[in-house]
């Protein structure tokens, strides 16, 4: 009888342990999936700092700017800016000795660019978001809505790709401790002047 009780207790222990491990794995999976989901959600949203860069990009314009309500994941501009940062041109002259490293990081970071939703509530009133990929000008002609990439922030530098009908530009910003993000220059990746 006592032996049977021992066997029973052993069986019970096994069942409890199996149950415990099974539930533990479920909880673990749940936590892992939650972590991944949170991580992805975080990765799919623009950070406050990225919004401040976008704000700085259009803060000096006279009138409102309409941009598409999602960022673009276009990456090949990295190959087009190479001559500028390697000294052939001087659209964005820099004396910062750390800039070559920043440029190297920029090359690496372009692979992380993805499509992200832009929230109107995070933007100043002069920047309007549009769901439409085309806009109409005063002559009734259609033209593509301006699109931007998510700002890439590396130390105190930020880079934003800006795409309009006849121009594709990479904007460069530098953060000032007091003034915040400041637009320093832009590089033309593609521009055509049509006459």
């Amino acid at each position, binding site marked *: 009888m006592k032996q049977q009780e021992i066997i029973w207790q052993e069986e019970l222990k096994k069942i409890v342990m199996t149950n415990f491990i099974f539930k533990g794995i479920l909880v673990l999976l749940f936590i892992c999936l939650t972590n991944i989901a949170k991580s992805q959600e975080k990765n799919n949203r623009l950070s406050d700092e990225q919004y401040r860069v976008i704000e700085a990009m259009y803060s000096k314009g*006279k009138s409102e700017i309409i941009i598409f309500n999602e960022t673009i994941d276009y990456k090949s501009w990295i190959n087009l800016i190479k001559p500028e940062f390697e000294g052939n041109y001087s659209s964005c002259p820099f004396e910062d000795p750390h800039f070559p490293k920043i440029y190297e990081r920029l090359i690496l970071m372009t692979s992380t660019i993805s499509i992200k939703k832009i929230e109107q509530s995070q933007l100043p009133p002069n920047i309007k978001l549009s769901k439409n990929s085309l806009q109409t000008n005063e002559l009734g002609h259609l033209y593509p809505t301006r699109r931007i990439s998510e700002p890439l922030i590396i130390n105190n530098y930020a880079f934003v790709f800006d795409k309009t009908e006849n121009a594709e530009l990479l904007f460069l910003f530098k953060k000032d401790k007091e003034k915040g993000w400041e637009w320093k220059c832009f590089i033309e990746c593609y*521009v055509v002047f049509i006459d």
Partner: protein
Amino acid sequence: MPPPKYKNLSRFGFLGFLGLLITMNLLVTSCVQEPEAPQIKLTESSQLAKVRSWFEENKTKLRLPDKGSKFRTESQELILPFFEKEPDWDKFHHYYFPDGREVFEVSLENATKYFPVSIIDSFPNKNPNNYVLQNIMFVKHPTENRFDPLIARYFPNNPDNYFDFQNINYNSINEFWEGRIDLFTYDEHHLISFEFLPDGEKRTISYGASSNSKFRTLSDCREITREITWVTPSPGSTVDDPLGLGATYHSKIITEVVCTGSMGEFPTTGTVYVDGTYYYNGDGFDPSGSGCGTCDYNPPPAPAPSLFIINGLDNPCTSDLFKKLAKGAPNLTDMTGISNLDIFPWMLELFRQGGKFNYYIEDVDLPVNAQGIRPNAQTKIPDSQGNITIQIDNSYANNATSLSLARTIIHETAHAYMIYLSKTNYEFRIELNNYYIAHNNSTPDANHGMMSQYLFGMAISLYNWDKNSGPTSGTLGLDYYYKMAFGGLLQNGTANPISDVVPMIPNGDWNTILQILENEATGNNMARGIKENCND
């Protein structure tokens, strides 16, 4: 009864579970991608560092072997005195010869400069030193790890043809450039010279013994004698230094062999003669061409300089018109009779600099854009080679008057020049950025807004073109040319003038300007310009 062991196990299991949880969590979170460590990229600069390293190691050996006691004394070859050359490694061009050999052409701006006596006449009252460009070309050996150098000297025919280092190199000579390029070995043996004449004719010049039968005479060649002079900074005899200036003036009469024709017809390698004996050519150091196996310096063969073709226009009218505009840049800025106008300083500079930066013009069938309009012309920013491209639409060129075509070319050249300036002139760039902000982040509007500062300049250039080369000989009245100059200065995607030019519109009558532009662009019977037929 002792507590069941499973309770203890469960406690252990819970702690283990927590441990496992933390470990897994760490593992999961560690899966979030961290930025990779920056990798050092192999850039042009690092390739140049290899060249520099090779040069530093070998520069004392880069001499052709002496051959005969009469070397440099009785030979008629051109040998300049050797001087140490210190390249300015920050200024270089990187390109490839047509046969695939890699070349780094580095500035020697700070080194002693030598130039033919004749160049002094080309720069009256000016120091020719300021116009001579000299570079050292390191040519990578096709199989060995060596970069034997050549010296290239660029002598413009006049100040208007002076290009700075950035805008001329052996692989990219502007087709409208006039001047001469001398190619020397590192130790200053002359290899060959190339002359680019105003009418487009090209010549090669070699020095040596005129009677030498091995001298290349593959084309229409003639022999002339000329004097070369140079100065060394050490006191000479009273004959060489009559004023006792502490410098020795050397002079030598040499024989030149000048061959005319297309450069492509000439041998592409230089030849050095010593004492009338065949000494070196691109294939080697002896007539058998077996090369110099033991030489420390192996001057590489060089092809003729590559011309950079600007004019890719097929339409004979447009092409002829462009040539006159490009070659007549000094005439375009003629301010006779209108010099009291208040002119923005960059305006005239635009046309004085015309052709001194790399751009290419061609005629194409431009596509109809998103607005359903076929543009007359367009200008694109530099390609991977750094060349700006202007494209003129074929149907527009076939219908427009030459006045309209000239206006469009001037307008597009202004775009090209502004693009060039935006890449090379920091102050200009800042100014352009301000226009960009003022024009609500529109690149076309920013450029057209800034171009409004060139409005008078474009009008004067158009007038001067017509006066000198056009079919109506400048008789249409300055007001007409002025109105034509407004062409293209529009708000992007509209027919409205860009805000910057609105105050400059005569009597605020924009419609009249639009009508004039339309008449000339379509060559209709209201046009005052003339539609030329160049095929007759």
